[in-house]
């Protein structure tokens, strides 16, 4: 494949044009709020908006809850599959891929009918119950990424030897999982966690249809009503996504990113 890289540079230049121009334009647009001069006024307005702060805090809390629940659900499952039930691996892999096949709008549509306030499990009857349902929905969205990340991490360590060593020292299953296995999966869990954070923080469809005050619906609302603030928010969202991806690189697991997500 030794060729003159000129063609490659042309491809890169065109790609840079397409990918950088919208970023520059968005940034430039976000500075235009005051007539005749560039200013950070749009950022000041956005950042001091209590709805921004509240919805951002709300989504951050949900993202953290999603990561904790997802990790507690996936690590023991993937561990158990590796140790005792390897024949179930294809089944689990199939299930964790399903959220990439079923669009999230379809999943939340089902929730609204199965868990409405008059149902056997009324998970939309109070704000707290709906928050729980929304968090579970995000765990579902994160399944493909968390599972792949954790499963790759588990395959890279000698689970059986670690388990037998811990057992011979008298450790129970909880000690094995949380003090032996989990610390060894730190980088796998963290890289899955940052990706989950990036997905949850701006999620619009499910939060909107469950009527929760998350960051995604807030963004949409600002977009429908304001001119320059949305551009400032887009710049902020881009920086958050970039920070998440940068952190994934830093925690350093070669990621085989699960393909696609239904947004």
């Amino acid at each position, binding site marked *: *494949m030794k*060729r003159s*890289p000129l*063609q*490659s*540079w042309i*491809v*890169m230049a065109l790609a840079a044009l397409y*990918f950088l*121009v*919208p970023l520059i334009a*968005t940034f*430039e*647009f976000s500075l235009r709020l005051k007539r005749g001069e560039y200013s950070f006024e749009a950022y000041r307005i956005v950042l001091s908006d209590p709805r921004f702060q509240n919805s951002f805090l709300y989504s951050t809390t949900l993202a953290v809850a999603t990561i904790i629940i997802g990790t507690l*659900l996936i690590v023991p*499952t993937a561990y158990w*599959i590796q140790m*005792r*039930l390897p024949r179930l691996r294809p089944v*689990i892999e199939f*299930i964790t*891929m399903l*959220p990439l*096949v079923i*669009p*999230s*709008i*379809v999943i*939340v*549509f*089902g*929730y609204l*009918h*199965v868990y409405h306030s008059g149902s056997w*499990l009324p998970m939309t009857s109070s704000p707290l119950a709906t928050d729980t349902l929304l968090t579970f*929905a995000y*765990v579902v969205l994160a*399944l493909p990424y968390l599972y792949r990340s954790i499963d790759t991490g588990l395959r890279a360590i000698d689970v059986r030897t670690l388990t037998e060593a811990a057992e011979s020292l008298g450790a129970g299953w909880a000690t094995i999982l949380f003090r032996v296995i989990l610390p060894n999966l730190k980088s796998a869990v963290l890289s899955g966690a940052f990706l989950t954070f990036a*997905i949850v923080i*701006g999620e*619009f469809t499910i939060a909107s*249809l469950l009527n929760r005050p998350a960051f995604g619906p807030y*963004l*949409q609302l600002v*977009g*429908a009503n304001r001119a320059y603030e*949305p*551009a400032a928010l*887009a710049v902020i*969202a*881009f920086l958050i*996504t970039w920070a998440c*991806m940068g952190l*994934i690189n830093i925690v350093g697991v070669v990621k085989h*990113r699960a*393909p*696609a*997500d*239904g*947004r």
Partner: protein
Amino acid sequence: MTSTATTPAKPAGFGLTWLGVAPFFVFAFLFLILPTLYLLVGAFQDPHGNFTLQNFRDLAQDSIVAAYWISIRISAASAFIGAICGFFIAYAVIGGGLPGWLRSFVMTFSGVASNFAGVPLAFAFLATLGRLGLVTILLRDLFGFSLYGAGFNLLTFWGLTLTYLYFQIPLMVLILAPALDGLKKEWREASAILGASTRQYWTMVALPILLPSIIGATLLLFANAFGAIATAYALTGSSLNIVTILLYAQIRGDVLHNPNLGFALALGMVAITSLSNVLYLWLRARSDRWVK
């Protein structure tokens, strides 16, 4: 490997072994499978709960067919163009003789851009190609060219396709990079020794090996765009009637005046994304034989 190494160290009872995966299956059943099954069953029922196929016949009305059709066209166009552009970018950074730092930058940027979707992406394109966007204004002031006067509009098929490409192309780069890495140098050298031209190498060696990966990834991009809603909704409101926006309106306010027809609409979406994913998995299984 001996047989003792594969059997569990402490054989637990049947029930106890399965208890370990029970939380996952209960969770997946309640929050992934049951809600989908509910829609599946509902799609075959009339409002009184009797079995019927009428909902699927009702899908044939003009507005619903039009919604599916524009969704399919946007998804197909953004997947197809995204696949071609993604291929050239991935090939340029992997086999194109570019410096190594550029490769890691492109890969990280692809990770960011493929996740930079939804509402903020719509804002970015409005700021770029909207009526007051930077590019629109620069074209007008510098070249006297009116983009909107020439018939362009961001809130149309091409506008949305152009916007979707912002996450489709990077996704293609990410999916295709491992396959391109799998192209062995020896194949190129072997074909060169046997007298093959660059063109012959591509058409007779590299492309046949890569084609399942490329087509498979294109199908995945299709499903990715087909299920998307937030970008389109923030960009166009409900002026562009793609099927996810129609379903959103149906969930919000039963615009179809028949809940069961809504279930059928959702089921139709799942059928289309399932089909493209099944084809993807089949093609990936084929390509895995060559590309390790």
